C-alpha cells in the first residue's frame, strides 16, 4: 500500500487557519467576558464576574425574552409557510424540482440587508403600499406599517424561510413512498396518511430547518436594525451596540457567550425531545 502520509498533511494549513481565526478568537471572547471595562472603553486585565451578574438585570432578561419570542415565532411561521411549499416541490417531476429549488434558494443568496431594505420601500409611510392605498382613496393618513415588532417578524420570516424549505424538501425526498400506498390500501384518508406517516417521517427535516432558522434569528441584528427602527432592540442589536457604541467589550462578550450557550442548550433540548418521541414511535 502506498504511503498516505503526505496527502494527510494537506489538511494542516486549513486546520491551522481555523484554529487561529476561529477557535482562538472564540476563546478570547470567553476570556474577555470575565474582564473589566476601563474608564475609556479599554479592557482591564482583572478577573470579575460582574458582566454576568449585570445580565441578571431584568432589563436584559426582557431583551433575551423578546429575542427568544421573535425567534420562536419566526421558526413557527417558517414551518407553516415552508412545509407546504417543500411538499409541493417534492411532488413535482425531477426537472421541475430542480428549477423550483433554485428559485427558492436564489432569494436566500441575496443579501439580508438588501432584502430587508426592499421591505422598507414597500412599507414605509411614503412606500408602495401606503401610496397605492392613498391614491385609491382608501386611507387618508399613511398607515404605520414599518418600525414595529410585526415588521421585524415579517422581515425575519421573509429572509429565513428558504432555510426551512430546503431541509424539509430533502427529508420528503428521502421518505419511503410505499408506506403511503400501504396506508391508502389500509383505508387511510390522505389527511390521515399525511398526519400519521408523512409528518412523523419528515420530522428530521423540520428539526434541521428549525435549528437553522432559530439560530439565525437569535443572532440577527440586520433585520431589526433596518425594519424595526429604534424601537426594537433584540439581543443582537444590544451586543453590536456594546461593541461599537458603548465600547464595553467585556460586557458585550458576556452577552454573546450567554446567547451562544442558550441557543446551544435549546438546540440540545430540541434534539432530545424529537429523538425521544421518535424512539417511542419506533417501539410502538
Amino acid at each position, binding site marked *: 500500500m*502506498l*504511503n498516505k502520509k*503526505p*496527502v*494527510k*498533511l*494537506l*489538511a494542516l*494549513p*486549513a486546520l491551522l*487557519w*481555523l484554529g487561529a*481565526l*476561529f477557535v*482562538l*478568537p*472564540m476563546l*478570547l*471572547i470567553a476570556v474577555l467576558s470575565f474582564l473589566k471595562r476601563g474608564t475609556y472603553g479599554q479592557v482591564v486585565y482583572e478577573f470579575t464576574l460582574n458582566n454576568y451578574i449585570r445580565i441578571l438585570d431584568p432589563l436584559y432578561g426582557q431583551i433575551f425574552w423578546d429575542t427568544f419570542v421573535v425567534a420562536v415565532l419566526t421558526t413557527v411561521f417558517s414551518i407553516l409557510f415552508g412545509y*407546504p*411549499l417543500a411538499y*409541493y*416541490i417534492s*411532488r413535482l417531476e425531477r426537472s421541475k424540482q*430542480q428549477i423550483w429549488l*433554485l*428559485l427558492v434558494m*436564489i432569494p436566500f*443568496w*441575496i*443579501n439580508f*440587508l*438588501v*432584502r430587508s*431594505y*426592499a421591505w*422598507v*420601500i414597500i412599507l*414605509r409611510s*411614503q412606500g*408602495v403600499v*401606503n*401610496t397605492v392605498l392613498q*391614491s385609491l382613496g382608501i386611507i387618508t393618513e399613511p398607515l404605520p406599517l414599518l418600525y414595529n415588532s410585526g415588521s421585524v417578524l415579517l422581515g425575519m420570516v*421573509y429572509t429565513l424561510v428558504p432555510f426551512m424549505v430546503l431541509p424539509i424538501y430533502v427529508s420528503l425526498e428521502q421518505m419511503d413512498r410505499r408506506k403511503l400506498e400501504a396506508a391508502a390500501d389500509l383505508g387511510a384518508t*390522505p389527511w390521515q396518511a399525511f398526519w400519521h406517516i408523512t409528518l412523523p417521517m419528515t420530522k428530521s427535516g423540520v428539526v434541521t430547518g428549525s435549528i437553522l432558522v432559530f*439560530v439565525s434569528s*437569535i*443572532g*440577527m*441584528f440586520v433585520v431589526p436594525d*433596518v425594519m424595526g427602527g429604534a424601537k426594537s432592540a433584540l439581543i*443582537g442589536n444590544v451586543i*453590536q451596540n456594546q*461593541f461599537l457604541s458603548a465600547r464595553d467589550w467585556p460586557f*458585550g*462578550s458576556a452577552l*454573546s457567550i450567554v*446567547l*451562544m450557550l442558550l441557543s446551544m442548550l435549546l438546540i440540545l433540548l430540541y434534539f432530545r425531545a424529537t429523538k425521544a418521541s421518535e424512539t417511542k414511535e419506533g417501539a410502538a
Partner: protein
Amino acid sequence: MKTWRRHTLSGYSWLMLVFLYLPIAILMLYSFNDSRINAVWSGFTWKWYLSLFENRQVMQALANSLTIGVTSSILATVLGTAASLAIKHYSLRSRTIVNGLIYLPIVIPEIMMGLALLVLFSQIHMELGKLTLILAHVTFSMPYVMVIISARLADMGKELEEAAQDLGATPWGTLRHVTLPLIMPGIVAGFLMSFTLSLDDFIISFFVAGPNSTTLPLYIYGLVKRGVSPEVNALSTLLIVSTVLLVIIAELFRRKDSKTITF
C-alpha cells in the same frame, strides 16, 4: 391526490414565490423611477445608475469588494480543496473531530464570528482594513468550499484512483491527473460560492472593516441608515443581479459535477 387539493397546493406555492420575489422586483423597479422621494412612479430613468458610476466612493467600495472577494476566494478554495483531499484519508474518529471544526463556523451566529475576529485583531494590534477583511472572509467561506468538495469526493468512489495506482501512478501523480480533474467542477463551484459569500457579506465585514475599506454591502448600509435614496435601489439592484448570476453559474458547475458522478 385529488385535483382540488393539488390546485390549492400549487396555487399556494406560486403565491410563496410571489412573496419571495415581489419585494426584490419592486426594489429593482424603483431603481428606474425618476422621482427622488415618493413611491409614485414618475417616469423611467437611468440617472441613478449613471450617478453611481460617477460616485468615487461607490467605485472605491466596488474595487474593495472585488479585491477582497477574489483574494479570499482563491485562498479559501486552495486551503479547502487541500484539506478535503486529506480528510478523505482520515480515520472515522479524527474525521468526525475535523468535520465538527468545519461545521461549527457554518452554524454559529454570524455576529459571534464577527466580533470574535474584531477582538482577535484588536488584541494583536492589527489595523482593520482590507487585510483583516480578507482573513475574515477566508475563515467563513472555507468551510463551505470544504463541504462542497468533500461531498464530491465522497461520491467519486475509489475505483479510478486505485486503477491509476495499480498502473503505477505515484500518489501525487494520481492526485494531479485523476482526482483533481474529476473534482474540478466542484472546485469551481466552491470558488464561485465563496466569491458570492464574500461579495454579499455584511455582518462579519461590519465588525472587521476599517474606515478606508468599505465594501459594497457596507456602503449600502450607510445609505440605508441615512435615509432612502434611489441610488441605494440602483446599487442594490446591481448587487442582486451579480449575486443571482454567480449563484446560477455555480449551480451549473455543481450540476455538471453531479452528472459526472453517475457514469
